[in-house]
């Protein structure tokens, strides 16, 4: 399991990156994150929505209500231009952290 602080910190970049592939809704976002991390990234499901709403307030994503194929109402989220910029910044920062960590790890085994 991944520590909750890291899970919380990774929420925004993960959501932005998932929405970059196309619009989606809360439940599907959580399922995809679970599947891609083999269940190691476990969010408390309800906590996703405050994050989505915060990102909407920031102007990174937009939302619309639509009916699913089963007739259930779902709120779909899509990436906005500011969201793409935010995603690029997140990727840059996470890549930097990753490269520093990888470099340090490499030095330990030399």
């Amino acid at each position, binding site marked *: 399991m991944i520590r909750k602080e890291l899970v919380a910190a990774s929420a925004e970049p993960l959501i932005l990156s998932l929405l970059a592939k196309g619009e989606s809704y*809360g*439940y599907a976002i959580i399922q995809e994150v679970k599947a891609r991390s083999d269940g190691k990234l476990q969010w*408390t*499901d*309800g*906590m996703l*929505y*405050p*994050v989505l*709403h*915060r990102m*909407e*307030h*920031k*102007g990174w994503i937009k939302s619309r209500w639509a009916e699913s194929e089963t007739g*259930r*109402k*779902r*709120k779909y989220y899509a990436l906005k231009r500011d969201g793409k910029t935010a995603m690029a910044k997140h990727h840059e920062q996470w890549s930097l952290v990753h490269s520093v960590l990888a470099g340090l790890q490499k030095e330990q085994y030399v």
Partner: protein
Amino acid sequence: MFDLEKAISDWRHQMLAAGIKSPVPLEELEGHLREEIEQQMQSGLAEAGAFRSAIQTMGQASLLKAEFDQTGGLDGWSGNNRFINTNRILGAFWVAQGFWYLSDLSALLGQVNPSPKNEPSWGFFIVAMAVGAALAGVWGGVCLIRGTKSGRTIISAAAILGLSLCPLQIPLHLFNLNLFPAWITIFAAFDLITLWLLFSPKHRTSKAAQ
């Protein structure tokens, strides 16, 4: 006998009691809960077990409420974040004021221009600036209502521009153009109130929390 609909209704009441009153997040959370229950039932759990498992994954109502409060409040006009509601009311006033102002100013533009040599007069430039401020007010007002980040910046700029235009009425009166009626003082007061609301320490704290 377990009644799923009653259980979901009770869960909704718990959420409401915790303060998640706005319809938008509650509808969204309920939709998620129902999908999770369906998923659990498809994987073999009975209704009661699926419901219990689903509400556990949703998280506690009080924690959810706290998270929503940190994000800048619950969506919707009935949301309980007063800063967002203040912004929306302020935005509505700016839209109304902008249109009212524009209707007067468009008539004034014809009066102050052209000068005898068909060149734009000072009065024309000042009224044109006022038209710009009014248009910015309408646009910024819409942004504030929608909760867009740029709304605060646009309205601040429009309020400062509006305030800076107020002293210009003195030279305009000297040129006998009589551009600005007495209610300019009301607009000046409105501009000041707007700036106070947008930049008051409490509001800044709220923005920082986001």
